[in-house]
């Protein structure tokens, strides 16, 4: 499946749920659907899952979506154990798995050599995990995850490809709009 198509599905089904966009193409793909409840990362690759855990713990009454990459998650794989331990039920963790680091030139990560991130999630205590290859299957499982009241890890196998889009580069503006959107009605 194409990452951009799957990103559109996420944004459509997430509704008002905050979305943490991981460094690189993952968050670039969100730009056409931009809104204040999207947090764009510009660096600190691997931190998406940890940032989302913090948001989830601060906002337990919202579903929190994090879009991550397989290469990025492998840089912070311990965060799956932390999420399992924290029992953050409102976290929906989506991993775009293209087998490596697209943003730096398509170098392969462990996922190109058989590393199974959904199994890792299960082993870390994430109650619901899924791996999907087709857009329609992704739509179904994401719809289930966003409507659920437990944590999910969805690994979606996507085609490689660079995004032409870029978010705002004023980081304080990115911080403030997201924080304001989350705390306004809290």
């Amino acid at each position, binding site marked *: 499946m194409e990452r951009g198509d799957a990103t559109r599905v996420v944004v459509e089904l997430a509704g008002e749920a905050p979305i*943490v966009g991981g460094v690189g193409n993952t968050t670039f793909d969100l730009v056409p659907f931009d809104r204040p409840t999207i947090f764009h990362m510009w660096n600190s690759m691997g*931190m998406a899952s940890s*940032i989302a855990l*913090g948001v989830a*713990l601060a906002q337990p009454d919202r579903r929190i979506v994090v879009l991550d990459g397989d290469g990025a998650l492998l840089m912070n794989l311990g965060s799956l154990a932390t999420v*399992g331990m924290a*029992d953050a039920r409102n976290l929906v963790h989506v991993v775009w798995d293209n087998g490596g680091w697209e943003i730096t030139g398509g170098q392969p990560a462990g996922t190109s050599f058989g590393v199974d991130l959904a199994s890792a999630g299960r082993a870390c205590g994430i109650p619901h995990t899924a791996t999907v290859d087709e857009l329609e299957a992704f739509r179904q499982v994401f719809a289930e995850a966003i409507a659920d009241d437990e944590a999910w890890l969805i690994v979606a196998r996507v085609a490689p490809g660079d995004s032409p889009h870029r978010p705002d580069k004023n*980081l304080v503006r*990115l911080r403030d709009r997201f*924080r304001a959107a989350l705390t306004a009605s809290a």
Partner: protein
Amino acid sequence: MVTVIKRSGRHQAANAPAWAHHVLDAFRAEEVRNLVFVPDTVMGRLLALAEEDAFFRPIAVHREEEAVGVLSGLYLGGQRGAMLVQSSGLGNALNALGSLAAAYRIPFPMLISLRGELGEFNPAQLVMGRAVPGCLSALGLQHLTLRREDELDVLLSGALKTCYTAEEPFGILLSGQLTGWKPER
């Protein structure tokens, strides 16, 4: 998963040192509720006290870089927290401090217990421990070192106020002069 496990391990609140009471009082006064930590002997004494206090929420992470991410997420979600780590662990968090917290101007106090300064028995703790003030300075982050009990309240309250005014992480280093050290040689 199991959530009733005591986060501070074998440390007991009744044995908590005076400095730990001062730190928690200062955190409480600034609504710093979430204590995001990686285990450390010194921090264990503070956590034992915090665990008995419903105001505080200890949040365990497995590596210090995660703490920066979690604290950033908490702040974005409207809650304040503090990072509780050992000096060696600060080294694990440096890129996230620079590329996330400092870059996006996300404030939180970093309580860092200093190894390698006074009474150190482990030669492998010396280099990173001594590098902590320099690392924080190189990132452009303010820091101070707590050494004496009679200075705690003014330094803690002053550091926390400046941290949130500056909207940046602020290093609060715990010297062995305050926290003691192991008898091991």
